């Protein structure tokens, strides 16, 4: 596991040297800022505004995550650097975790506008910051899971575009489960909802840290990372 930080460092370096990363950072800040300012007015209560600031990334992540994860493996497979990387004395697990951490840290940078908005809201008046803290925990877990989906897509394809499109389609599918199951009480609806990433996140933004939600994210992220390791070991990318 000693090589994880080495790989994370290189991944972060690669992010900040690529135009796509700056496009994603700018687009996220702009879209989040515009959507936030459109919704928040003088009559809105500050607590609700903070929750809204944290709910927005649900949608923005579906757009940003494929752009952030598509190159992680696809680029190395296409250019052949995967061969120099995997013949160095490192394990597949180290490579997968190193790249995953790189993407996660980059996402944290991407989320700085949200923190700025929250600080701004707090300066306007007193409100309970508890739900914001649990919200950030939830955001971290949601992001980790969504990046892990993207990482797996990238580990299966030599084409960045293909990996991004497949990743986006999977995310749309998962979000659709949430929309279908929302507000219904039937067993099937609860099942659909339960599979959907955003549904678990929303309870975090309400200040509820439920172990079932925690387990959902931890187990699914772990399983996705494990599959990425396996995909990398098989070396059967298309």
């Amino acid at each position, binding site marked *: 596991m*000693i*090589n994880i930080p*080495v*790989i994370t*460092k*290189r991944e972060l*370096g*690669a992010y900040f*040297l*690529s135009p796509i990363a700056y496009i994603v950072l700018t687009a996220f800040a702009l879209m989040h800022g515009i959507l936030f300012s459109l919704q928040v007015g003088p009559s809105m209560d500050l607590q609700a505004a903070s929750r809204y600031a944290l709910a927005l990334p649900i949608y923005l992540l579906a757009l940003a995550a494929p752009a952030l994860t598509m190159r992680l493996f696809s680029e190395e497979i296409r*250019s*052949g*650097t*995967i*061969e*120099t*990387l*995997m*013949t*160095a*004395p*490192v*394990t597949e697990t180290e490579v997968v975790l190193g790249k995953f951490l790189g993407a996660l840290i980059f996402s944290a940078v991407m989320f700085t506008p949200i923190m700025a908005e929250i600080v701004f809201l707090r300066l306007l008046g007193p409100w309970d910051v508890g739900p914001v803290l649990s919200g950030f925990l939830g955001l971290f877990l949601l992001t980790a899971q969504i990046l892990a989906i993207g990482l797996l897509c990238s580990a299966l394809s030599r084409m960045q575009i293909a990996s991004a499109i497949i990743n986006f389609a999977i995310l749309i599918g998962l979000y659709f489960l949430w929309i279908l199951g929302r507000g219904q009480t039937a067993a099937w609806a609860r099942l659909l909802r339960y599979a959907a990433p955003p549904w678990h996140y929303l309870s975090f933004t309400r200040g509820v840290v439920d172990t079932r939600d925690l387990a959902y994210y931890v187990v699914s992220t772990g399983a996705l990372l494990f599959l990425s390791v396996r995909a990398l070991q098989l*070396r059967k990318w298309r």
Partner: protein
Amino acid sequence: MLVEAKGLTRRYGDLLAVDHLELSIGRGEVVGLLGPNGAGKTTTIRMLTGFLPASEGTVTVAGYDVRRSPVAARRHIGYMPENNPLYPEMRTAEYLAFRAELKGIARARRRRRIAKCIELCNLAGVAGQIIGALSKGYRQRVGLADAMLAEPDALILDEPTIGLDPNQVRDVRRLVRDLGERHTVLISTHILAEAEAICQRVLIIDKGRIVADDTPRALSERLLQGAVCVELQGDAPRIEETLARLPGVQNVQGEKSNGWHRFTLAAAPGADVRADVFRAAAENGWTLRELTRRRPSLEDVFRRLTLGPEPGEERRP
């Protein structure tokens, strides 16, 4: 044995790319892996380095099985893959620093090793440049510098001179030859002159099997006779018949070009038939324009082993 492969086999679907290949390379050897394109060179090398899992068979490097203890085995290998893939957005020194850290070179030694490899590969002038902007020759040297960074026991280089201009080819060959003094080197190539210039031992691979394994000189001497080229003017069938009857001539191949007839004589090993050819020409009054002996080259060995006998070579007039 530093690198040893036993029954190494790789299938891609129905295609048998490498077929129960046996290979062993001792410490200090400089070995060339030769073969036509598609013979299985890259697949073999990828299995030796542990990048590609073998369908069957085992590979050990310095005693470590590349499948069972991949990390330990890889510590003994410096590998430059085909086409030398690098990260184009990184700077040369930055890339080498990343690779040194990845290869687990201790911090205290890292700076020294990077400086040493930059010096050996003549990269000082481009240490601060972005790899994507470097010429192919420089990039190749960055790949070589990376391969030798951790002072591995075995250097495995897959077609290190492909796509370079003649000057760059000479530079890289010189570098590889120098490396051969301190490391065990396995180099794959389809350029025979390269193997002849660099290697003490040549393995010729065809259809996934080793078809020859010897020194370049022994290979050409053992497998091919010397050949003599002669160009004459006269009655072609009669010339051919006379030449074929000369002592030591094993076969004659003719080819006609505007009045001059060109013959290639295959001679028995050790026989020099040039004087006899001259005398025969003089006696019969044929005009002689050319008479040269061709030392059998690795090229011929290669063609012979990988394509079978040339058409007409077995024919006797």
